[in-house]
């Protein structure tokens, strides 16, 4: 079967971005195209998959066609992919499958979200739009609330306290501090993170990712074209996805994400690797408790030991067996919903090619993983990337 190589990747800075949807997407494609080493142009693209929840107030329908029109790809076969915060993780998987199946040789996967151009009152209507609207939302829950329910139950079931989540926050802010494209580039002390404003008890402000604008994209090609465009392709070695009940209360466990577990199993299997082989992982830490669960569900820590993993600093850059969220994660790098999944892939692309800021470089990085979750765990896409085919 065809192997898939990533030959280009780019993203805007995440945060309060001055440009609108069209401008952000154009900037992203410009960066992705310029990151390709040899002779690539947007008109080479055969298929495009763009993840977005269409949070912003600009273009809600047919967003993908508008974006490709404004980025030199008019006429390409394109569609929007919507799976909540996992939209571009699934766009990446769709692009991977398009090449794997032999239907296309050159494909763009990306994502975009404009979140900060809405008024506060209008933004409220969109809060929790990807949770279970009928039952969870009408019980007063938005995502901080849903993850707070998970965190409190986790503390009840396992040897863990809120301090473990504080460690996650401090680590990710430390990692994101040097990242030029991160939204919140500031280090946070343990005491400050511990005493943050209570958003949803027990989660404080420092447990929650920011609301970001941003866009990201990667360029995937079939194996026979990889060396036409670059001498150092990054191989998409594995892809897996899964889903689960939309509402937390319908799931058998409140402290595990079955969608992640299933996606990871498939991704490890297609890549022919195990969790122990991974050098760095960009995991979906929309809330700090989500990173704790992810370290367990992805196999980096045993069941109930994710809190201890964080407490012991095992995910810190170059300190443990795997670096978790070298970019700063959603917590520091930012979370522009639809752009987050491929934004994680951009970070892995640069880390594996040793193209990040020197102080952020994960040593001897050979294998990277991305983990992109939709909602409170209803959807999940996991990808594994390597320097070797």
């Amino acid at each position, binding site marked *: 079967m065809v192997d898939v190589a990533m030959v280009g990747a780019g993203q805007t800075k995440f945060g309060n971005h001055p440009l609108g949807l069209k401008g952000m997407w154009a900037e992203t494609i410009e960066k992705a195209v310029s990151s390709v080493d040899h002779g690539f142009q947007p008109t080479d693209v055969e298929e495009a998959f763009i993840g977005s929840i269409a949070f912003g107030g600009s273009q809600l329908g047919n967003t993908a066609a508008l974006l490709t029109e404004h980025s030199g790809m008019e006429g390409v076969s394109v569609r929007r992919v919507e799976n909540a915060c996992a939209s571009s993780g699934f766009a990446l998987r769709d692009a991977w499958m398009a090449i794997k199946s032999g239907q296309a040789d050159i494909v763009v996967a990306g994502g975009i979200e404009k979140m900060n151009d809405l008024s506060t009152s*209008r933004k409220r*209507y969109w*809060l929790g739009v990807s949770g279970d609207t*009928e039952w969870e939302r009408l019980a*007063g829950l938005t995502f901080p*609330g849903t993850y707070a*329910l998970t965190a409190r139950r986790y503390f009840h079931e396992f040897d863990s306290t809120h301090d473990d989540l504080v460690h996650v926050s401090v680590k990710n802010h430390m990692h994101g501090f040097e990242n030029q494209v991160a939204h919140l580039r500031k280090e946070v002390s343990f005491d400050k993170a511990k005493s943050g404003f209570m958003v949803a008890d027990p989660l404080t402000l420092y447990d929650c990712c920011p609301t970001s604008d941003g866009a990201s994209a990667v360029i995937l090609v079939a194996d026979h074209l990889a060396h036409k465009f670059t001498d150092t392709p990054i191989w998409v070695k594995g892809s897996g996805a899964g889903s689960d009940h939309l509402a937390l209360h319908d799931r058998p466990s409140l402290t595990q994400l079955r969608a992640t577990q299933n996606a990871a199993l498939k991704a490890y299997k297609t890549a022919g690797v195990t969790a122990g082989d991974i050098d760095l992982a960009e995991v979906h830490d929309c809330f700090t408790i989500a990173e704790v669960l992810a370290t367990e569900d992805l196999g980096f820590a045993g069941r109930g030991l994710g809190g201890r993993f964080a407490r012991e600093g095992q995910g810190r850059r170059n300190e443990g067996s795997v670096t978790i969220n070298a970019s700063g994660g959603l917590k520091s790098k930012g979370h522009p919903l639809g752009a987050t999944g491929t934004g994680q892939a951009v970070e892995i692309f640069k880390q594996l090619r040793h193209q990040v800021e020197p102080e952020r470089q994960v040593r001897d990085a050979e294998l990277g993983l991305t983990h992109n979750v939709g909602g409170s765990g209803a959807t999940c896409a996991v990808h594994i990337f390597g320097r070797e085919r």
Partner: protein
Amino acid sequence: MSSQFISNDDGSFLASQYGPHWAGPDGDRLTLAIRLLNQVPPGEISLQCFEEYLEFTSSVSLQAVIETATNWKVNEKATTMLHTHSDEFIVGITSSIEPPTYPTFDNVESDDGTRNDLRNSWQEEVSGVSQGAYVSQAQHMIASASRLGLRAQTDKDRLVWPPRQLNGAGERIQEPTEQLSKLATILTWTRLSAAGAPSEFSGRAPILGGVSTVLVEFEEGPKGVFMLADDESKSPEIDGTVRFEVRRLYGQDGLMHYGLKAILC
């Protein structure tokens, strides 16, 4: 919410714990009536002396709300009448169509400012229109047996709640008929700050200092999430017990949506 209940020769009457001037942060004449109907033996009841005094139109018909949330049947020819005071939050059940002589209830001090703020907030909320995610009136009607009455579906040997369409064999699951327990156990809980509350509650959440939600498990198996009510002086605990009462959930598009809220036991 504890309430004030009086039964005398004229009938049975109820006012909230806040006295006859206020039905509480999420109460009104309808929620008081449901509480009263659940305290006396059921039968058939007429609403003709009651309906006109409701402040807002319910998204689900009054008959459906009452028949789902209580064991009473609504019959306009019934000789048992549901009454409410025109100016005060008192409800009564009598056997006469004439306005009853309402008994005197204790007046309980409540903060006028909070009361007025909440009243204004409800008014604004009901007149608002959603500009994002919302649950349609049709969906409220479809799910009313589950939302207001805790009726669960049966799928082979298990109970299903909230309702679903098909099971794993591709078979349609029947309409909900099985009554879940009136009590449930708290598995986890949170208190959401006003800033993080969904738009449906964004007007009232700052006045109430946030909203609390519990995720509970019924002894029959299903789990669910409910907003807490009457938790001003108590905090929930994992493994604690809650019961359920119909309260105002939120207002939108000119309609008031009612549903069950959890009350700490």
